[in-house]
């Protein structure tokens, strides 16, 4: 274990990442799609009989857009950085060392889009209309390019393609099998969000204009929604076989009361996606009756859809954080990268052995939990271990740990029989009846005798 593990009570570090990320993902997609909206609307306004009224709407749109995307978008983007380095330093380090110049290039696009947006917004009364159109187009192109870059790194984590630790082939890793379908999906998502955001702002203007703006904004949502299943299917077929199996097991398992998380999240994304289409059609049909609350509710539905999509992506990666390379808890898949073989005393392979965790002590089990489990599980909150081990006996617990990676979503256990006994004792002790590791070992020894 190279790094200490950040133990967040109740939430768990992974959920901290997720909370920040799903807020950011909605805003960042909107930040790009909104650029397309601005550019097309500038052009559209110039062809209407009352361009000034439409530009007054656009001024309102861009004010909300600017504050929302910069205050919450830029900061939560940095927030993802902060949270992933805390939750998964090993993976963040690998991504940084492989892709730092991609990220640095993306940073140039950030500062470019920010600057262009400011020139657009603050130049509202001084720039020519032509310049405003040019700036809006420029903003969209630069912002979309930032997506073009980050998409390579995001998809790399799930489908690294021909990249390996040895060849470090950045082109193969960047333009990996998931790259193109994901790029199209995200582009459609951002157009959808721009339309939905347009609905919200449209509810703040006079009725007759509202009707026209909603009609205009709906043209961003509907085509994107119609194309989405097509690209979703393409994306699906780019995913690893293991992901398909996991998802399929979820479907088959419903009858038996077992619905895999990955299946749940894909359904959430699909159902909310359908709701967005229905909601958009209703709004387009009755534009004057549309309230701000209704428009915000539709945007909130999109937020749920993003949640489903992003959790799906996370679950599809399990048990890895970088598929086939690095497990979620910072263990390298390649034995050459693991300091010692898996069944050796665990503390020999970690740099974070405390002085007092003598073999068999309560601290021994606790430290194994902290270093191996806590990156995904909390004791009694999100993915609670107390709940998951409520029925454990020493024998069951020991066998479970020996076959941990057979679950499909968890990495292998690192450590020998003494380490397993210490962890089992610690986990069973969570239920109010303290058990010593020695007792667990004694029970196991008794069970082992015929």
């Amino acid at each position, binding site marked *: 274990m190279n790094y*200490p593990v950040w133990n967040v009570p109740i939430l768990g570090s992974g959920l901290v990442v997720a909370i920040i990320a799903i807020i950011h993902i909605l805003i960042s997609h909107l930040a790009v799609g909104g650029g397309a909206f601005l550019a097309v609307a500038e052009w559209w306004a110039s062809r209407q009989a009352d361009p000034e009224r439409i530009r007054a709407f656009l001024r309102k749109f861009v004010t909300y857009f600017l504050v929302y995307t*910069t205050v919450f978008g830029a900061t939560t983007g940095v927030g993802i950085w902060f949270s992933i380095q*805390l939750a998964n330093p090993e993976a963040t380090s690998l991504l940084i060392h492989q892709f730092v110049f991609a990220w640095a290039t993306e*940073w140039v696009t950030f*500062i470019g889009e*920010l600057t262009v947006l400011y020139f657009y917004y603050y130049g509202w009364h*001084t720039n020519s209309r032509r310049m405003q159109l040019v700036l809006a187009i420029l903003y969209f192109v630069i912002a979309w390019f930032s997506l073009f870059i980050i998409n390579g790194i995001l998809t790399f984590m799930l489908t690294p393609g021909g990249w390996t630790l040895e060849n470090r082939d950045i082109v193969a890793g960047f333009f990996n099998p998931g790259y193109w379908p994901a790029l199209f999906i995200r582009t459609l998502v951002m157009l959808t969000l721009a339309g939905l955001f347009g609905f919200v702002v449209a509810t703040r203007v006079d009725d007759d204009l509202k009707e026209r703006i909603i009609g205009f904004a709906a043209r961003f949502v509907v085509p994107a929604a119609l194309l989405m299943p097509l690209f979703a299917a393409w994306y699906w077929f780019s995913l690893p076989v293991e992901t398909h199996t996991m998802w399929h097991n979820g479907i088959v398992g419903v009858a038996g009361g077992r619905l895999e998380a990955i299946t749940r999240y894909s359904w959430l994304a699909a159902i909310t996606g359908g709701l967005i289409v229905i909601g958009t059609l209703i709004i387009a049909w009755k534009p004057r009756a549309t309230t701000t609350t209704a428009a915000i509710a539709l945007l909130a539905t999109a937020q749920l859809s993003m949640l489903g999509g992003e959790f799906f992506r996370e679950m599809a990666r399990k048990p890895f954080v970088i598929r086939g390379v690095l497990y979620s808890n910072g263990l390298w898949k390649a034995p050459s990268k693991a300091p010692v073989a898996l069944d050796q005393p665990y503390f020999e392979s970690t740099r974070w052995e405390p002085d007092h965790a003598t073999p068999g002590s309560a601290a021994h089990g606790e430290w194994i939990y902290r270093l191996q489990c806590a990156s995904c599980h909390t004791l009694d909150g999100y993915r609670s271990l107390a709940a998951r081990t409520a029925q454990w006996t020493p024998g069951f617990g020991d066998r479970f740990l020996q076959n941990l990676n057979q679950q499909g979503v968890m990495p292998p256990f690192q450590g020998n029989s003494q380490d397993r006994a210490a962890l089992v004792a610690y986990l069973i002790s969570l239920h109010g009846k303290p058990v010593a590791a020695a007792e667990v070992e004694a029970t196991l020894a008794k069970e082992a005798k015929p």
Partner: protein
Amino acid sequence: MTALVALLAAAPLPAPDPLGFPAAPVLLQGLAYLTFTLHLLAMNFTVGGAVLLLIARLRRDEPSVHFWATALPLGFSYLVTLGIPPLLFVQVLYGQLFYTSSVLIGGFWILVIPLLILAYALLYAHKLTHESRPRFQTVFVAVALLAMLFIGFIYVNNLTLLQTPGRWLAKYTAHPGGMTLNMEEPTHGPRYLFFILPAFAVAGLAFMLRGAYLSRWGHAEEGQRSRRLGFVSVVVGAVGVFIGAAGLLATFPAHIRTFVLGGGLPTGLLTAAVAAAVVGLVLAFAARKAQGLLPIYAAILSFAAGLACVVVLRDQVRGAYLAPYFQLRDVPVNVQYGMLAVFGASLVAGLGLLIVLLVKVARPIAAKHVVVR
């Protein structure tokens, strides 16, 4: 020697990333220095500006309030955005140390994000409502300022913990969730002041620059006032920095003090920084009275050069702290030529675009937002 061996044994140092450096460390350091200097300028502008805004609000100085109300959200967004590349490059260079210190104070480190959002939102709230609803505006700015000051304090804790691995294991044992800071660090107070107090100087210079443009655009009285007020702030900042620097030298461990004052590059950087600050101060004094833009731009350049020297010196000092544990030259280098070219090209394109925009559209925009209505 035995003390050193015991220290090393107690420090659970993670191994550097197996991929190695994607470029020569000196290039990565250079990029980090450049972007960190820009980040510090934006940070100082925003933090110092928030203080000057508060003062202006209390003095009911409407023109100044209006200027800072517009400028601070902009400054804040560049402070955040310019903070990204130094964060990227520090992760490449010192990742295994930086991630560890971040995890060890994780509870506070993640707090940076809500504090950022709070400060940013309050500065925008102030900008959008300061004319219509003046009642809570002073509170908005005060809370935003406190949030920014606390963020800086968390940063100082992380970056000092990064270079003191001897404290790591005890901290991790006691605080698994990272609800701790590096409060035992003796250089904390002066280091914090040393990085925060230049805010007065940078914000003061910005205000003087505003004054110079106002004078140029025919608003002589307000221009003169802006330069005069700005200069007071510059003096406060410069004096503060010298006090902070003296405090820092006094609290450094003996071997670090010797490293800084014992000749060679570190002493040269220190001398250059002091010289640049003094020259900057003289130029700012000249710009206080003089017409034209040259003196104030020269003062700004001089201060920025001094700040850049401090940034390089800071990294050299970090190297001295880390010398027993880790040296950059121990990490293999696998140069990514293609990606370097892509980044370089994007940087050139970005700068080109910036220049075109500045030439084509910046002037009327700046005039509209700087000149008092």
